């Protein structure tokens, strides 16, 4: 078996080696391919270039495809210098398989412990070693609303879920879709669930859901409102959810065809791209109920190449987390910086709302951080099934979610 996998490794290596790398060139796999995103990654690439290094760009469209490409190259023995992964449990299996290089030296030299939020540092630390370079943070639970649609029914941004559904009823009477839901990937149903969960639980009870007694908590009264809202929400959406991409769904808000939309900060860029102003034609806030911002993020995983971190990898880690790059990168991407000391005055209304929630301490780490990809996948696909079942009750949601927390 060993010879066989060795044979595979050699073949893969022969097929993939594109030329001898110089000491300072960094080959980076990432999934930032849209216009705003490639401008953002250009910021890091330029900054890396200014230090005398050569940036070798390997953009792969779609996060799954990019990760697949990175993993198969690691298995094949020809890893890139850095590869984009999600902040959190996404890198667990890579750390367990000992294919990543610890970044402790860079983290210590740049005092990550004092400039980065503890939760972010924890999310990249395994057994006391740092195994990922945080690149950016992203709020996943922005509530967007069409100002035009809300004006028509004389409503404002809802402060509670009761207000949300009240406005929803009025919107429906006015012939506007109350709630737009994206449905081409399971993760969008997970995302909506996560937003509802945060708005009901707040920062205090969030840990009980993600903790070891999660299933028990889900069956308690405290979780009940989440299940009730989730059971009610599908009846406020239109029939075209299945298979609809998030950016197409976002258009419904931009055109005023729909009232509300829950999506991550990456949708903010689309508002500007459509020639609209966040906070004016498209209102946004962090969920009803003064919800905490649910924070996800991206990291560079750095595969071990020989002994420890290479010079190129160390330099990339340093450049990515520097104040200057963080400021320009996050404002280009519409995301949030991973460290303190970054000027956030240039942020638009939506991003500023997210930054404020974080500085107020009103934020929680997304389910991606703690839950394995397997658990998240199961959660997303089960929620998708419940979404299209018109008979699904709050009890069904409780049992399904509790079952997943028990079984995975």
């Amino acid at each position: 078996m060993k010879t066989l996998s060795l044979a595979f490794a050699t073949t893969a290596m022969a097929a993939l080696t594109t030329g001898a790398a110089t000491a300072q060139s960094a080959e980076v796999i990432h999934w930032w391919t849209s216009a705003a995103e490639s401008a953002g990654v250009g910021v890091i690439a330029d900054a890396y270039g200014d230090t005398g290094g050569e940036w070798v760009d390997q953009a792969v469209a779609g996060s799954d495809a990019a990760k697949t490409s990175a993993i198969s190259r690691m298995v094949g023995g020809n890893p890139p210098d850095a590869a984009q992964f999600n902040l959190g449990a996404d890198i667990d299996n890579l750390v367990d398989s000992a294919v990543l290089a610890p970044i402790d030296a860079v983290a210590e030299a740049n005092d990550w412990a004092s400039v980065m939020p503890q939760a972010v540092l924890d999310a990249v630390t395994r057994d006391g070693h740092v195994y990922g370079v945080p690149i950016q943070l992203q709020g996943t639970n922005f509530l967007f609303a069409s100002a035009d649609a809300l004006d028509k029914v004389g409503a404002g941004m809802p402060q509670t879920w009761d207000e949300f559904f009240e406005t929803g009823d009025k919107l429906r009477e006015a012939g506007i879709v109350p709630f737009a839901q994206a449905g081409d990937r399971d993760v969008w149903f997970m995302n909506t669930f996560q937003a509802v969960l945060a708005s009901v639980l707040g920062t205090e009870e969030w840990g009980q859901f993600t903790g070891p007694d999660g299933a028990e908590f889900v069956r308690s009264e405290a979780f009940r409102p989440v299940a009730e809202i989730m059971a009610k929400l599908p009846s406020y959406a239109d029939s075209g959810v299945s298979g609809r991409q998030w950016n197409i769904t976002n258009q419904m808000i931009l055109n005023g065809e729909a009232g509300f939309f829950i999506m991550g900060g990456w949708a903010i860029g689309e508002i500007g791209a459509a020639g609209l102003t966040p906070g004016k034609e498209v209102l946004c806030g962090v969920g009803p109920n003064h919800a905490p911002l649910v924070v996800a993020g991206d990291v560079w995983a750095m595969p071990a190449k020989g002994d420890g971190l290479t010079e190129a990898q160390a330099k990339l880690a340093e450049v990515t987390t520097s104040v200057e790059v963080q400021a320009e990168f996050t404002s280009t991407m519409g995301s949030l910086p991973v460290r303190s000391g970054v000027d956030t005055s240039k942020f638009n209304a939506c991003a500023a709302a997210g930054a404020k929630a974080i500085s107020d301490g009103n934020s929680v780490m997304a389910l991606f951080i703690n839950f394995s990809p397997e658990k998240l996948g199961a959660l997303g696909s089960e929620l998708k099934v419940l979404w299209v079942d018109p008979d699904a009750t709050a009890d069904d949601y409780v049992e399904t979610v509790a079952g997943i927390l028990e079984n995975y």
Partner: protein
Amino acid sequence: MAKFSGTRAHVYLAMLPVWIIVLVALVSSTVWTFVISLTNSKLLPVYKFNFFHQYELLLKQPAWQVAVSNLIVFGVLFIAICLVFGFVMAIMMDQRIRGEAFFRTVFLYPYAMSFVVTGLVWQWVLNPGFGIQAAVRGLGFENFTFDWIVQPDRAIYILVLAAVWQGSGLVMAILLAGLRGVDEDLWKATRIDGIAKWRVYTSIVLPIIAPMAATATVLLAVSVVKAYDLVVALTGGGPGNATEVPAKFVMENLFARQNVALANAGAIMMLVAVIAILVPMYYARRYMAQKAEV
């Protein structure tokens, strides 16, 4: 031996690259897939064996059961409708109609498109928000409803519709070639006997072109098992899990859910299903061939 080295050595030599590719790429990959399915690998292969544990998990998973039953419904309907449509179209073509080349191109054209393009086109056509339903309503028929693609109990038939649209042209082309191979004298003889044309097609021509039909069936069956791109492009497995298929389950677990061993167990189950269909077919054809020789 003399025969081998004399005349046929060059034949074996020519086949050597093919055999190497088959052994290295196909057989060894299959074996490796099977070995990993016996481990508890998550993201990268680890060789800690727990034997058929993954298969046990797999068969117990409701998601897998749904995927398999969806595939059976899809496969049976798709193959049956494709064969019937293809046969009828081939017969119509066989009437020496005018503009045959034109129609043949039109019917075969969908097959030139990938499943991804097919899926996207049909997704847009059938989307209740801006597809056929919206268009007909725009003409003034306010109550017109055609939203099967978003109905959990109907979406699988939409999958069949798109696949039939794409695949039946191929069946037509294969069967038409078969029909053209039928001896003209046979037709003359049946005309003299005054046998109805439909009777000739069903009782005489059909058995003659049976091998062609079998070839078409195998080709269709392969595309059923492979069904992944069409589902992803057309419905994304939804609404709910109404159009999930085993190939999509395998792909999802392979990387997105970081569960390589379970995914490989699923892939092996698909292989077993294919073998279970192909082996009896192979023996049936050999039996028929032997009978024909006698």
